[in-house]
């Protein structure tokens, strides 16, 4: 148990899986959230010039309070800078490079202890190219490792891929990431799921997530009773249909805590004093 750490989501996946599109969408839809987005390099991320408020080397400040940082080959240094930002961002989104292993990145970030908490590894895969990548001499084991470390796998471009490719990809994801939650979605749908942060109970009902193929259901649990937070989180995390959850609850000892959950991974931290009880849960309608 600790003070609230900076929540961080890792977005992994090979070239072409939709990571950059996702980062773009996130930046455009941040609304009142202050996002810190880390990318390997700016090159592939076209940021609209009129969005840029200031640029200082590898750190770009965007209108609305979001920042975007390119970390090159020193992710840990970039994260140290983000951690020391004042005011602190609400959420860090880390776009891993195409050949990076998100599991190894998560492990490194754990060195920040309570300051930064990985609350999810999201691996994107392109439904059309996944079968080829998994049979590629050079890259297949990298893709396998990216899938294995995912809490949430998002199969993208299912609307573009031939149906037989999509179903093959679906099967391959099931085989290589058996414990991860799997979603099929267009990128803008994912953005909203990932930004489910700082959600108040009221805003949750406004969520309009319409992913491809599998419908999602958003439930709000009022959490009026005290609970064993860890046991509660474990139950949610072990439910294969639960994709994402976030909110606050009060434990039997009177401590108010925040739950962050992505797929099978969750973290529980001390909640801000003003936090209202209530947890939003997004799940696949089984």
């Amino acid at each position: 148990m600790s003070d609230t750490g900076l929540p961080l989501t890792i977005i992994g996946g090979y070239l072409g899986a939709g990571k950059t599109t996702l980062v773009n969408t996130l930046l455009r839809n941040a609304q009142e959230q202050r996002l810190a987005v880390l990318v390997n390099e700016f090159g592939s991320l076209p940021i609209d010039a009129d969005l840029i408020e200031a640029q200082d080397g590898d750190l770009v400040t965007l209108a609305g309070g979001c920042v975007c940082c390119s970390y090159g080959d020193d992710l840990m240094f970039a994260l140290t800078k983000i951690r020391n930002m004042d005011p602190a961002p609400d959420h860090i989104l880390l776009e891993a490079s195409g050949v990076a292993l998100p599991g190894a990145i998560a492990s490194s970030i754990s060195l920040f202890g309570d300051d930064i908490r990985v609350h999810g590894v999201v691996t994107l895969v392109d439904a059309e190219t996944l079968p080829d990548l998994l049979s590629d001499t050079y890259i297949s084991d990298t893709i396998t490792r990216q899938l294995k470390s995912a809490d949430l796998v998002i199969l993208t471009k299912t609307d573009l891929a031939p149906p037989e490719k999509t179903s093959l990809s679906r099967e391959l994801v099931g085989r290589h990431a058996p414990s991860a939650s799997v979603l099929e979605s267009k990128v803008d749908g994912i953005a909203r799921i990932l930004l489910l942060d700082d959600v108040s109970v009221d805003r949750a009902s406004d969520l309009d997530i319409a992913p491809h193929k599998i419908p999602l259901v958003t439930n709000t649990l009022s959490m009026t009773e005290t609970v064993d937070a860890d046991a509660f989180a474990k139950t949610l995390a072990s439910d294969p249909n639960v994709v994402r959850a976030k909110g606050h609850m009060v434990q039997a000892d009177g401590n108010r805590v925040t739950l962050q959950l992505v797929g099978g991974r969750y973290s529980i931290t001390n909640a801000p004093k003003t936090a209202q009880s209530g947890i939003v849960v997004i799940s696949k309608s089984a």
Partner: protein
Amino acid sequence: MITVFSARKILTMNPQRPVTSHVAIRDGIILGTGTLDEFEGWGPYTLDDRFADKVLMPGMVEGHCHLQEGALWSHTYVGFFDRMSPEGEMQAGCKTVDEMLAKLAAAEARLEDPDAALPAWSLDPIYFDNQKITRGQLDAISSTRPIGIMHASGHIMNVNTKALELAGLLRTGINHEGVPLGSDGLPTGELRGPDVMSPVSIHVGFDRDMLSCDEPGMWRFGKLCIRAGVTTATDLAARLPEEAVETLLRVTGNTNFPARIVPLRFHHGVSPEDLIAHVEALAPQSTDKLRLGRIKIVVDGSIQGFTARLRAPGYYNGSPNGLWYIPPEHLAYILETSLRKGIQVHTHTNGDEATQLVLDTMARVLRKAPSLNHRFTLQHCQLADTAQFRQMKELGLCVNLFANHHFYWGDQHYDLTVGPERAERMNAAGTAAREGVPFAIHSDAPITPLGPLFTAWCAMNRQTATGRTLGEAEKITLDQALRAITLGAAYTLHLDNEVGSIETGKRADFAVLEDDPEEKGVEQLNETRVWGTVLGGTVFAASDV
């Protein structure tokens, strides 16, 4: 003004006049070699006989090293082997853990600022029976200032409690394979891998950009070049931001700076498109002593760090395969675009799978962008087999092999990383020569010391530190080795038209030796004493620096 140097012997590496006694130079360029009467037609000259008892050979070319070696000498050297400092002090190697700790304690005692960090480098516990160093041992030296010791491999660091505290790592509950824990649940102070070292290294006095070099470091590097007989040296993985280029231009522009520097822009941290644009912008800023406009791509990791990409049958100890540091698509883009634009690319590949990826990719992009003399060079290329050398030849690739590696870590490769058969074929210079692949050999300084004559000795003898010979068939001859450290390396940089041999029209770059390498021969070449260098006609004596 024409100067003629006389020498006991001049090894020209020019087969038309392989051995002569005099060399005439004007404005930094060689007019010719031969006898005094052959120079008459050039006009009046001054005869300089200060090298009358010395042996001259072409200034040596180190095709894979880093200016960082100069920066590291501002820290305490704690390596196992004796190593010459830039100032010419032979620093005794630390043969036991206690000797290392004593050297650190002495360095600590010299620090006046009580908060100053104490950085040290080149620790190699493999020579101490892999005895682990603990933070407690370093705390005994100082518990108030941060201490950090970089291992020789560059992949591991040992730090004291204060350093862990400053980096926020002195706590229980850490769960990371690169951070071993003691019985108290706290880190032991050993940190493995760049992600783990990075948050701590800045607190113990290492630069964040480990490969960078400041101005004093460059001058120290220059001194090392003079002592090693090197007149052209690469800086093989440079980011080259504007400030760094300004420093490089300023320092190399000084007539007292004794080396030509060839920095290669490395691919990390920029998009492939921006990388190409950056080197295109850098190229026109080149000067005689600073050659910009080349690219270095790091394809995989290291063998001893188990991050190199190996083909079947993989690592000898069963470690999982290593890591890619660039997606194959980006590699293909950079190679193809560079071929079209005439930009030279060197690729770091340690494992044979990484080498194969470059070979396959080159075969594909050369069909799209045919190029006759690209001289793209595979760097390290430690595990390539004979078929891969044949492919290099077919594709017009060069190779620069890590000959020193055998001496320092050959036994470890034999016992642990790749096993006996592949340890014997590592850095297969003999195969490169047999298959006709243009090749060089290197030190990767600061990983191993800058010293082409020692590197040549390693490639000829293939001995490990314990005396085992690794790969009789891959030994090369004296002629091949001397060529590899001069013309061979120059060829991989497209500089063989300017340097690498002593012949008319080329730059007056010489290594000045006390001993004759041909007399020293295969077994004693490493004992050849270097007097200094001549760069573009300017004399640099090791005794003066």
